[in-house]
C-alpha cells in the first residue's frame, strides 16, 4: 500500500503520522501497531520496510517535530524529553504500541518505554543518525542564533540541539528501570544496534536486556497473547 498520512495535534503544531501498513491480522484487529521512529535529520520511510514484514499489526511511522511533514517550531528548543511527547501523542491516538527506533529514535524509544510503561509493549534500539547525541558529558559549549527559518525540514535547530543533548548512562538506566519495573514483557528492551555509545553500552550490559539482529528483535515482540492483554 502507499502510505497514508494523518496529522496529530501537538499543541499549536501538527505531527505527521504515516500508516505504512494496515493490520494483516483477523478482522478483529487483534494486535497492536508497530511504530517506527526515524533518526536525527531523517523522516519516515515512504513505504513499509522489508524488515517489518512479519509484523501482523499496523505499521506506523512518525515524523518528529521539525522533521519530515511535521511542523517546525519557532526558535527551536528541542530536547529528547519533549520529543517523547510526540510519541505520546501517537499513544494517545492509537493506544499501546511496540517501537523500533533508529539513532535519535532509539534514544526516544528508550525514554518513552520508561515513561509510558503501560502503553509501550517493547522497544528495539537500532543504529541510525543521532544515536550518540552530545555524549555522556556536556560537550564544549556552543551557542548560535539562526534566522527565523522558512519552515522547511529538517529544522536546523533540531539538528544542532539534538546532536548536543547529554546522555549519561545512569540516566538511560533510570528509564530502563522504569520500563522493567512495570512491563508485562520479560524483555521489553532489545538492542539491535551495532554501534554502542556509552548509554547503549550500559543498557546492553543489563541482564534484563536482550541483543538481537533487527528482524529477530522485532519478532520477539510478535506475541498475540501479549497483544491481546
Amino acid at each position, binding site marked *: 500500500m502507499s502510505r497514508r498520512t494523518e496529522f496529530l495535534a501537538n*499543541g499549536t503544531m501538527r505531527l505527521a503520522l504515516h500508516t505504512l501498513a494496515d493490520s494483516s491480522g483477523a478482522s478483529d484487529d487483534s494486535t497492536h501497531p508497530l511504530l517506527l521512529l526515524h533518526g536525527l535529520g531523517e523522516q519516515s520511510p515512504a513505504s513499509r520496510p522489508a524488515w517489518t514484514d512479519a509484523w501482523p499489526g499496523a505499521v506506523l511511522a512518525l515524523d518528529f517535530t521539525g522533521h519530515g511533514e511535521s511542523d517546525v517550531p*519557532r526558535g*527551536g*528548543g528541542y530536547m529528547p524529553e519533549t520529543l517523547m511527547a510526540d510519541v505520546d501523542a501517537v499513544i494517545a491516538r492509537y493506544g499501546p504500541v511496540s517501537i523500533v527506533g533508529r539513532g535519535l529514535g532509539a534514544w526516544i524509544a528508550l525514554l518513552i518505554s520508561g515513561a509510558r510503561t503501560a502503553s509501550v509493549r517493547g522497544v528495539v534500539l537500532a543504529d541510525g543518525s543521532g544515536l550518540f547525541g552530545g555524549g555522556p558529558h556536556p560537550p564544549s*559549549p556552543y*551557542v548560535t*542564533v539562526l534566522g527565523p*527559518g522558512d519552515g522547511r525540514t529538517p529544522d536546523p535547530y533540531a539538528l544542532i540541539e539534538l546532536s548536543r*543533548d547529554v546522555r549519561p548512562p545512569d*540516566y538511560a538506566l533510570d528509564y530502563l528501570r522504569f520500563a522493567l519495573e512495570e512491563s508485562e514483557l520479560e524483555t521489553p528492551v532489545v538492542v539491535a544496534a551495532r554501534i554502542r555509545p556509552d548509554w547503549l553500552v550500559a543498557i546492553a550490559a543489563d541482564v534484563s536486556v536482550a541483543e538481537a539482529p533487527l528482524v529477530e528483535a522485532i519478532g520477539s515482540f510478535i506475541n498475540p497473547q501479549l497483544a491481546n492483554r
Partner: protein
Amino acid sequence: MPADDQMRSYPGARPPDRTGHIMSSGLRLALNEWGDPDAPMIAMVHGGFDFSRTFDVFAPMIADAGWRIVAWDARGHGDSDRAQLYSWGADVRDHMAAITTLSDEPIVLLGHSKGGGQLLDLLDARPGLARAFVNLDGMPSQFSAPDINDRERRRMRRADVGAALDRRRRRNELTRRPDTIEGLAGRRAPMNPRLTREWLEYLVTVGARHDAEGWRWKIDPLLHLGGFGPWRPQWSMDHLAALDLPFLGVLSGVQDDPMGWKSRRGDIEPFLPPGGQLEFYDDIGHFLHIEKPRFIADLVLEFLGRLP
C-alpha cells in the same frame, strides 16, 4: 483595562523608561529599559517564573547611578511570545540574540537565579559578550536534596516525566486560573515567602493580565517549576571556572527558602575566576535584589565602580 482600584504601587518601584522588543529566531521578546539611553549598558536577566518587571525597584537604583539597564522577558514569560518548545538551551540562545541585538560591544551582564545560571553557560561559549558579570544566587553546584537515595530520586524523576507528558497532552486546554490581585499574590506567596504581600500584589499588576474573569499570570501555562532531563547542577561550575572577566557572585544562605539551588560558599569558591568576588548572606533569601534592593544595588555599584 483594569479600573484604578485594581492598580497597585510599591515604594521605589518605577515602570520602565522605555519599552520595545527584540527578535530571536522569529520569537518576539519584550524589552524594558531604565536610565539614560547613552549610558553604559547593563543587561539584567530574570529567573524562572519571573519576568523583567521584577526589576522595577532594583533596576532604577542602578540606572540612577549612571547606567542604562536593559531587561527582556524570557520566551513564554511576561510580555514575550509563547513558544512551542522551551528549553534551557533555547533561553541561552535568546539571551545571546538579545545581547547582540542591543550592543556591538561587550557589556555588563547581571543574572538572577536561572538567569544567572544561563549566563554562565552563555559566557563559557561566548566570552566576548561581556566585560563583567554579576551573578545573583544563580550558581548551581549541588543537588539541593543530597540525602535522597537512588530509589527516591528515580521515583521523583518518574513522577516528573509522567506529569510533564500529561501536561503536554492537555496543553491546548491549559489556562492560568483567574483570581483577584490579592488571590494571585497569595498563590505566589509560597514561592516568595520572604517578600511582602504589598510587593506581590504590585507584581500581579505588572506580571498578570486582567480580563473579565480577573487577573491571570501572563506566563505560559505549559511552563512549570522544575523540569526533567539529565541536567546536573554541578555542570555549571565548569562554566564558572572557565570565566576570565571581572566577576561578582552573591549567594543567599537561607536554606529554607523554597527557591534557589542552596549553594554554599565552599561549593563555589574553588571555581571562582581569577580575582572573582563572592559574597554570602545567610540572612537574605533567594530574591536578594527584591528583599534588600538598596543593599544589593550598593554592592553591585561598588563592584561596577572598580571596573576598568
